[in-house]
């Protein structure tokens, strides 16, 4: 049967690279996919980790300065009362979306290729949301009082949060998102943690992985419960893919500022989030698959599919831009239109055109298979997308605020060194967490890849109602 399937695959001239290369068994997959956990890390890992830790140092420094001096250390002013803090928040939250999309929607769509990259992307979600949360919490000025502002508990001072504010909705949306993503990720890890417990040689490793694997024995009952729970979690996560960034978009769209108040904002923000999330996955996975020896499992098929998703979501983002610009013009509303003219020709025009280049122009190169499947091209384009999406948030937030309805309120915004340092610091913190993840946990969902391999090798031995109708005996896989 296995050879029949292999022939069928070879006979399909339109089939791409398989999702699993090489002649793997469960054993070789375990060795390949857990190898980087057992191996002592090389110089490269230490060098990167040192760099990331230095970045984390910047993070600590920027927070210390902010707490010591207050928010005045940032470049915020009136009218731009909200700048790097919210730009970076939205940027990081968006990056997390690839993980949720891969874990939830691609699972429901039965996209088998997701199994090689879901662990990686889900980890990215969690680490990115942590970075995102830093900004609003620090922006409260005195984070130790943040609970008063954010969590709806009956305060003795009669201070209640403003439930009509989308910032409040954000608290619920993002905290739900973080909780579900963490549970989903951890649940997926349990069978692999159990394998690590059983196969690791060190005593400490056995104890730690043993505790984390929650007594997993791999019995049929365990697998059954695990599968059911996984599907339920995917169902719960699916609306989250849409809701989180829709609520983030409401932060702006419910306001009456020109350039913010647009009904297209929710879906266009969601598409932008998935766009940047997938770009970040490509940025990290391209070097990781090489250095962790995962090329058999994360094949060109995965990379090409991710690039296709970047292309599609990039086109949706472009559609959003087009709608905003067209309706601003069509409406004849001078304030609305002047915001868009100011974006393209005003003092921040450079950022605007960088955004257009990175989000609208260059992703279209992915129409070409040659570029979709070129490692250097996709790596550069993925970084450009992340730059472009950061610029998008800068443009939306700063240009709408810095020139209000009355010219006497106009003011330029310039970030300070603390703004830049905190942003760089979150990149350092994110990288630190990511490198630790790749050091101590399997970067690929090994149990799921093994299952996928079994399915590919053994083929279907189920009833095929469609084939039975064609007069073929049941259980016969037709090739």
């Amino acid at each position: 049967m296995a050879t029949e399937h292999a022939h069928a695959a070879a006979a399909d001239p339109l089939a791409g690279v398989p999702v699993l290369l090489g002649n793997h068994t469960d054993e070789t997959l375990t060795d390949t996919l857990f190898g980087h956990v057992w191996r002592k890390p090389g110089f490269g890992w230490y060098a990167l980790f040192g760099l990331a830790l230095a970045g984390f140092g910047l993070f600590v420094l920027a927070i210390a300065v902010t707490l010591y001096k207050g928010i005045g250390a940032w470049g915020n002013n009136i009218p731009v009362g909200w700048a790097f803090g919210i730009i970076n928040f939205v940027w990081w939250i968006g990056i997390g979306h690839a993980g949720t999309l891969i874990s939830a929607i691609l699972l429901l769509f039965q996209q088998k290729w997701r199994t090689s990259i879901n662990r990686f992307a889900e980890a990215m979600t969690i680490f990115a949301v942590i970075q995102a949360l830093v900004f609003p919490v620090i922006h409260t000025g005195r984070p130790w009082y943040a609970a008063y502002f954010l969590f709806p508990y009956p305060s003795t001072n009669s201070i209640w949060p403003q439930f009509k504010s989308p910032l409040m909705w954000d608290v619920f949306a993002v905290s739900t998102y973080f909780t579900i993503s963490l549970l989903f990720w951890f649940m997926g890890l349990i069978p692999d943690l159990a394998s690590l417990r059983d196969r690791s040689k060190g005593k400490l490793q056995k104890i730690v992985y043993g505790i984390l694997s929650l007594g997993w024995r791999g019995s049929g009952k365990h697998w059954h419960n695990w599968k059911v729970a996984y599907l339920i979690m995917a169902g719960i996560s699916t609306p989250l893919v849409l809701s989180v960034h829709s609520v983030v978009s409401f932060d702006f769209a419910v306001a009456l500022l020109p350039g913010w108040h647009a009904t297209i904002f929710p879906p266009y923000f969601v598409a932008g989030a998935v766009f940047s999330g997938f770009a970040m996955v490509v940025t990290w996975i391209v070097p990781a698959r090489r250095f962790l020896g995962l090329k058999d499992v994360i094949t060109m098929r995965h990379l090409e599919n991710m690039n296709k998703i970047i292309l599609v979501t990039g086109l949706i983002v472009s559609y959003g831009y087009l709608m905003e610009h067209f309706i601003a013009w069509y409406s004849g509303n001078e304030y609305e239109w002047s915001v868009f003219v100011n974006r393209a020709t005003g003092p921040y025009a450079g950022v605007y055109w960088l955004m257009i280049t990175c989000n609208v122009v260059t992703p279209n190169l992915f129409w070409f298979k040659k570029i979709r499947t070129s490692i250097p091209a996709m790596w550069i384009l993925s970084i450009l997308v992340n730059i472009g999406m950061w610029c998008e948030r800068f443009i939306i937030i700063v240009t709408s605020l810095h020139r209000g309805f009355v010219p006497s309120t106009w003011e330029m915004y310039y970030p300070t060194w603390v703004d830049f340092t905190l942003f760089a610091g979150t990149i350092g913190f994110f990288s630190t967490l990511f490198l630790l993840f790749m050091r101590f946990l399997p970067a690929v969902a090994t149990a799921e890849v093994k299952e996928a391999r079994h399915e590919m090798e053994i083929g279907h031995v189920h009833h095929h109602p469609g084939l039975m109708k064609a007069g073929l005996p049941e259980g016969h896989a037709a090739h």
Partner: protein
Amino acid sequence: MATTETVTVGPLNLDLPRFAGGMKWIGVFGVIGVIGTGITLAGAFGGNQDAWFSYQAAFAFWTATAVGGLILLAAHHAANAKWPTAIRRPMEAVAGAMPVMLVLGIPLLLPNALSAIYPWYHPEKFDAELLHHFHGHKELYLAPGVYYVRQAIYWVVFLLATEVILSWSKKLDEVGGHEFIRKTRSFSAGMLPFIILAVTWAGFDWLMSLTPFWQSTIFGAYYGAGGFLAAIAIVTIACLATRSDRSMFGYWMTKHHQHNLGKLLLAFVSFWAYIGFSQLLLVWIGNLPEEVPYYWIRLKTGWLPMSTFLIFGHFALPFVLLVPRTVKLMPRLLMAIAIWVLFVCMVDVYWMVLPALHEDGPHYSLYNFTAFLGVGGIAAAFAIFRLRGRYLVPVKDPYLVDSLQYLQPH
């Protein structure tokens, strides 16, 4: 007369006849269509505004549905999806109504129609303040000459995409192999952005400009989402209705395909609600004088019951019903839900159009019914007519085997 030809694909020997039936349905739909359209257009040219608005709504609805079918078809090709191969023909049929939609749209291009339906056709009737708003970009954009140029562009896109995909599908039935599939996949991917842009602007022109001083950036997506959902509903109905005839696509639909159609209905009922909610929330909470009238008319007048009906009938009810797997696997129930969804999609377009004529609440007239049944009847008759002489299953498609052995995860 059915001509039986044995077609061999892998181990499949499908001795399917080419489709030679359907005359009964072509007759039924054709008669309903001609009578309905005839009555509506007679009323319209007789100067009845209800007839014009009803005809406009019916045309906008059925065209969006045909475009929805085209997007469904093109998206599956672009995504290299193999599972829908066995039930691809009804998707092609929905899109295949496109040429007749162009013909049905011609009366709406006549000056009588523009004059009766669109306030921007008579800017001289605006009061001074509205005229002030109208001057500038809108005056230019909504000038009849420019309007006609845009209509031509939409139809070139819709017809080019439909006819090329359908002609390659015909060729595939003759020669088999992978070449036409490969070409269709690339062409579909390349055309999708243009189809989506065209349907967006068609929505702006046909429906949004009924209220010329109102605009919403998400309007095109809302209009397109409704048509897409209606197309899925029709494909579901067509498959379920032809389950017992071996020469029809419905027979080859397995419960796994059926489950997927149910899931698509669920997903796009939710998507419609998401887009509709985004628009409603942001307009309502913004409460701007230039934005809010659209919803004020629909929520604070006699239109409120219909708006409430849409929330429950177009979203809550089908959503709750479609969530359980067992419901999606029950053919009769799924069929009933799909028919319901098609109906509420019509109500949705009616709700977008008619309040522009009657701001105080619905004034039901005979034309409301004759228009939807008439335009829909002609479209259906034409779509079925185009299937004659074709195999109703893509017998030589190399992925038919994959489609027939497609399984849901267990």
